[in-house]
């Protein structure tokens, strides 16, 4: 069961790699043109194209790329000659750090809020939590970010931009990255919170919860002990989806806070036609999405005895 899932995931990744390669072929212009920009002349263009190996046929370039990527070698950046793994390494670390930071804020908050909202359904608290979360998610990310900058950065409490260098301590990092993490938390909380609330409320109508209630159990115990374990599958799924988003979809927040993450690297690479980097980053994003969804599937299978021990 789980093995089949993993195999499907790998197959999917292979198809995605084909699409990634094909899509970058369709972009107008090429790297040599983009590199030389306004300064391109036919002569310098030809010389640069030859140097960069842009003249090989597409299937050859695809095979070279895929076989390299499988061994962790994405080749060198076409535009500045640095190894892509080195280029991506630090950025990937930054992106994962920010995603985990935001998740470590967002997941507990949304679970607690979701459970409490289910527990006190239709109370003032439930309404306030829902309204707050929905408001936060309804604003575009950059707006939320600018509001936070206005309130928390221009007043001198937190820095308005993130300047990480190799000597930055973990504590400094947490402090400097707080605003982007908070922005992302505000953006993803509503989704997870409302899914938690809905899943639990859905179960509260089931006969076994009715039984528990008739037995005289406290409402909190009913929710935590009886409802939550059965509601885990949808909650895990929505958390995985949001984690994937936190890794792949935060380019706007990166731009506003000048955060050197993978998203900005990808945008840079696209606009500069650094196809090798675009492909590598796209592949990493795809792998992150597939892996997290895979993990969510596996975890929800494990939490559901009916799926684990199917006859």
């Amino acid at each position, binding site marked *: 069961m789980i093995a089949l899932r993993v195999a499907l995931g790998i197959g999917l990744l292979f198809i995605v790699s084909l699409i990634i390669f094909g899509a970058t072929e369709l972009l107008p*212009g090429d790297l040599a043109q*983009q590199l030389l*920009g306004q300064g391109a002349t036919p002569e*310098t263009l030809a010389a640069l194209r030859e140097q960069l190996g842009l003249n090989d046929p597409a299937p050859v370039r695809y095979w070279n790329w895929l076989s390299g990527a499988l061994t962790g070698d994405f080749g060198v950046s076409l535009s*500045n000659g640095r190894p892509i793994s080195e280029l991506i390494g630090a950025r990937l670390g930054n992106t994962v750090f920010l995603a985990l930071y935001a998740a470590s804020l967002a997941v507990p908050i949304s679970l607690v809020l979701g459970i409490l909202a289910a527990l006190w359904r239709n109370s003032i608290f439930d309404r306030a939590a829902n309204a707050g979360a929905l408001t936060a998610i309804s604003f575009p990310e950059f707006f939320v970010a600018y509001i936070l900058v206005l309130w928390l950065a*221009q007043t001198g409490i937190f820095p308005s931009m993130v300047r990480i260098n190799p000597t930055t301590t973990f504590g400094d990092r947490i402090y400097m990255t707080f605003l982007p993490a908070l922005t992302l938390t505000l953006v993803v909380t509503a989704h997870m919170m409302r899914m938690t609330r809905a899943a639990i409320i859905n179960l509260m109508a089931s006969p076994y919860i009715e039984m528990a209630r008739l037995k005289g159990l406290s409402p909190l115990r009913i929710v935590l002990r009886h409802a939550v374990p059965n509601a885990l599958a949808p909650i895990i799924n929505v958390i995985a989806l949001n984690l994937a988003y936190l890794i792949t979809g935060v380019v706007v927040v990166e731009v506003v806070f*000048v955060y*050197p993450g993978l998203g900005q*690297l990808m945008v840079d690479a696209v606009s500069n036609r650094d196809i090798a980097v675009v492909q590598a980053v796209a592949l990493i994003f795809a792998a992150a999405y597939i892996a997290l969804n895979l993990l969510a599937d596996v975890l929800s299978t494990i939490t559901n005895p009916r799926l684990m021990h199917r006859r």
Partner: protein
Amino acid sequence: MTKLRIPAMPLSRRGVLKGAAAVTAAGLILPHTAGAARAQSRGGTFRVGIGHGSTTDSLDPGLWENLYVQTFAAARHNYLIEVGADGQLLPEIAESWDTDDGTNWVFTIRQGVTFHSGKDVTAEDVVASINHHRGEDSTSVVKPLLAAITDVRADGNTVIVTLEAPNADLPYLMTDYHVPIMPGMDGRIDPASTDGCGGYIVESFEHGVQSTLNRNPNYWKSDRAWFDRIELVSILDPAARLNALITGEVHLIDQVDPATIGMLEGRGVARILSIPGNAHYGFPMDSRAAPYNDNNIRLALKYAIDREAMVDVILGGHGAVSNDNPIGPANRYFNTEMEMKTYDPDRARFYLREAGLDSLDVTIAVADAAFSGAVDAGAMFSETARAAGINMTVNRVPNDGYWSNVWLNPNGDTPFCATYWGGRAVEDHMFTTAYAAGADWNESFWSNDRFNELLVAARSEVNEELRREMYMEMQQIVSFEGSTIIPMYNNYVMAVANEIGTPEQISANWNFDGFRCVERWWMA
């Protein structure tokens, strides 16, 4: 902010022009505040937020093109010759230079200057640095600019440059930011090296993110490089850049949005520097394609644009109107005697009738990649042209791929588009790059026999008065017969924190004090 109009005073750039002539336009109209005039002092970290830079930037000087790499280069490198804040040439690695006939040039190399690696700067290094931009396999963007050089060789502590034809402006070409002096090895430089002989030594850099540099303790200039440390940060988002300045994360930012200037000044943490230079925005027309092959049509369009309104709206007043003249007020031979074209729909109609037309339909392709506000400028142009019987359709094209798919009309469907130029220190440099017949960047594919004749003649003319006349006539021709509409010169607008001291005069040669803010400015 009051409008800054440039007085008609040419910048002198030559040692031979004596004394008071060196007082220049740029210095007179700079806003001065308390921080600006204090004495220079050493120390501090200068952090600059730059609205350029990407992961694909290169260390190879032949590929440099944006303000980030330009400033990064100015911090770590020296050049043969420097353009001073007043536009005059200053000796840098070349202690002096001389020519007998304008064809053979001798540059004497300064002794006792070392690279950051400790190696002495020699004539061989200079030869290798220049040769990086020459020859078959060179990918340098300034290859066409240096194409007239037939030979470069070292002779003791001098470098001898031979040209195929006399050119009195060769020293100016040697100030080009693409040609830093780098250590040579077997006649070649290593384009991936950060080693230079400038005021700051690179500590770390990550393309598109930031770089840090420390003061070079062995720097040969004693009155430069005041800061202990330089940090250059790439901040592409205008709002993020402004926030970084307001919250004190950086001391200097470029490309301040005119709309936010009032708010920024109200904060009292920074001052605005608005430097008039030769940079300009324009609309080239492919002169090979109908209807632009008829000069009457071109003139009709030139009278159908409201230049004053463009300066007000597109530049927020931070600029000056241009008379379709790529030579700017910071140039030596700037022509102010030409009849100024104003917005005149009747006159435009007159030229349309001359061309045998009652009305005209044209399409202009614009994208903000050409210059910030190009799309709005296209819309304004279209509005004002309507009154002259010209139906101008504004075709908004994607920023992505603008320079490869739209500019220079590569597919034959964008004969009329938008462009920008950074301006050049010398007339010849600008004309040769974009107006000489057959030049690679001749964006209007314009060719004028008289102009081309004058261009070659002026290059080697040593009589100052004759040379001036020739350049005056060339500007007249480009303005009234050329195929590029140039409505405005755009100022370099930057904002600098109050704790940074700036000189009385700031270079109009390029942005950021000719990229030299890193070594000319100080912590006040």
